[in-house]
């Protein structure tokens, strides 16, 4: 039971990192990344393959993060002159295309069998304490990400980002380089998806293409939405909520008599997707509740910093 809880806790931490990435790119900069599962997978595979080739795990994590960020920035630059729909299409295509590569390049990725036996830090030294240690490592990454992002979003950069999100033209007139800000935010988001993938790969020690399907994208959108889109703490809370929903639905579905495993799985995915639709409908201004102050709409004295944190 303890092992199970530690497992869920670590997984929730990984979801929290993903949700933080989405909050930066979607909540703060207004850019939709429908291929976050792809960046998650890219980070996981990159780190697994690199560490398998003898690269130290820490370095593998950094390289996986950089690779994912570079991919994100490249897609952002490619669609810079177009409506956000195009970025959504391209990132979704990236995730699907990457999954094809993962499934078919057996020499590199092990094909649909995936990669197993991925090394993990300290696992061989302390096999018993490993689950708790890794939980701590994962949540340390979450904490570092929250602290760094909070600083970043409170800075002029964060304010400029929200200005771009709320009205690109106004931000451009104010002298902000809209494209640069957007791609930076998108890159930071992609970097977080990448590091989440790396953490995931070394946690489960086994990855396969099926781990990086569109479902994970929906889970994380649900986590970010449930937490209020643009708030960092909300992303973490949302990740925990999604983890709870996932596990509760597993128990609830087994309680319904006469369903086989396939039907239960389908029902759960259906429920999660519907939950995301309902929550977007029910929280009309969720995404933009934390918008920048506009003249005359809020008390002037309120500090901008509260926008990011609270």
């Amino acid at each position, binding site marked *: 039971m303890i092992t199970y809880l530690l497992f869920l806790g670590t997984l929730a931490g990984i979801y929290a990192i993903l949700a933080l990435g989405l909050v930066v790119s979607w909540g703060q900069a*207004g850019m939709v990344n429908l291929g976050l599962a792809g960046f998650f997978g890219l980070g996981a595979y990159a780190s697994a393959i690199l560490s398998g080739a003898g690269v130290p795990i820490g370095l593998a994590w950094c390289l996986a993060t950089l690779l994912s960020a570079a991919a994100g920035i490249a897609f952002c630059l490619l669609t810079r002159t177009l409506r956000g729909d195009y970025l959504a299409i391209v990132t979704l295509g990236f995730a699907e295309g990457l999954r094809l590569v993962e499934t078919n390049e057996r020499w590199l990725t092990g094909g649909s069998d995936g990669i197993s036996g991925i090394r993990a830090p300290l696992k061989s030294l302390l096999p018993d304490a490993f689950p708790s240690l890794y939980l701590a490592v994962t949540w340390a990454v979450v904490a570092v990400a929250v602290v760094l992002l909070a600083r970043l979003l409170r800075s002029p950069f964060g304010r400029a980002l929200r200005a771009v999100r709320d009205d690109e033209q106004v931000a451009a007139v104010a002298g902000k380089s809209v494209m640069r800000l957007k791609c930076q935010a998108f890159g930071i988001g992609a970097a977080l998806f990448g590091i989440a993938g790396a953490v995931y790969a070394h946690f489960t020690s086994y990855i396969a293409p099926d781990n990086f399907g569109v479902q994970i994208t*929906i889970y994380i959108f649900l986590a970010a939405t449930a937490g209020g889109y643009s708030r960092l703490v909300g992303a973490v809370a949302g990740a925990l909520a999604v983890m709870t929903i996932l596990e509760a639905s597993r128990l609830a579905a087994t309680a319904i008599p006469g369903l086989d495993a396939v039907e239960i799985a389908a029902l759960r995915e259906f429920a999660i997707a519907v939950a995301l639709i309902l929550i977007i*409908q029910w929280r009309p201004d969720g995404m933009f509740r934390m918008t920048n102050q506009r003249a005359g709409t809020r008390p002037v004295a309120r500090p901008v910093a509260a926008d990011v944190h609270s």
Partner: protein
Amino acid sequence: MLIAEVAQYMVNGLVLGALVALPALGLTLIFSVQGFVNFSVAAQMTVGAYAAWAAGAALGWPPILIMPVAFVVPGILGIVADRLALAPVRRRPGAHTPLMLAVVSIALNLALENALHFLFGGDLRSFDLAVERDVSVAGIAMGPQQLRNLATALTIAVTLAAFFSLTRWGKAMRAVADNADLARLKGIEPARLAGLATFIGMGLAGIGGALLAIDTSVDPSTGSRLILIIFAASVVGGLTSLTGAVLGALVVGIVGEVALIVMPPVYQSLTAFVVILLVLLIRPNGLFAAVGVRR
């Protein structure tokens, strides 16, 4: 020998392109009139395929009745899903509403796909048609069903062209697609055309799925597997041009099949993704978009 081989791939590409043209037209129509990318066309393709399968294989209806079923079932389901899932989000206009709608539509796609998975299970369903001999002309072989698919797609394209150029509703839709503000100025309310656009768009996707299923088979992911090819077709066509969507589908279909000469078949979707990237690099508004028309 090589020429014959390339010609064979091009014909295969034409068949694939004609099939993909239907959902791509649906996607483009909905984007033009409603202004957002509706990712659920993929699942609606599968809905059409299952509707056709249920009518044809389970109930034994003749092919002439199967196609209307494959059109109407996803069409109506599309309107219902639009009312239930998307309309509440659309009612709050804002700069980011189209992206919110895109996110909702991809959740909708997953929900529909899993509903089908729940109802029909994960097995492949086929129509158990008699095996027919390929038709061979000048060394290029084609299955009779592929020929029928090509004919069906062509018939539908001609019907649509007539609808858009001759009828009031069709002209109104084109006006909205060209410029929603100008159309509104002329008294055409885009919101009132939304339902019709969804019905036709999802119906087209459904027929595409049905044709694919008759030629091969259907399972819950039938449509989603084609999602990249569909989107590549629409992007090549510029996302708002109906003619562009058809031409784009043919381009993507032919490029995808001819690429098989050098690439393994599993990478056909990847070719489509590369096509998307190339078009965005070279001509972001699509290969066939008229200059000056923007949304």
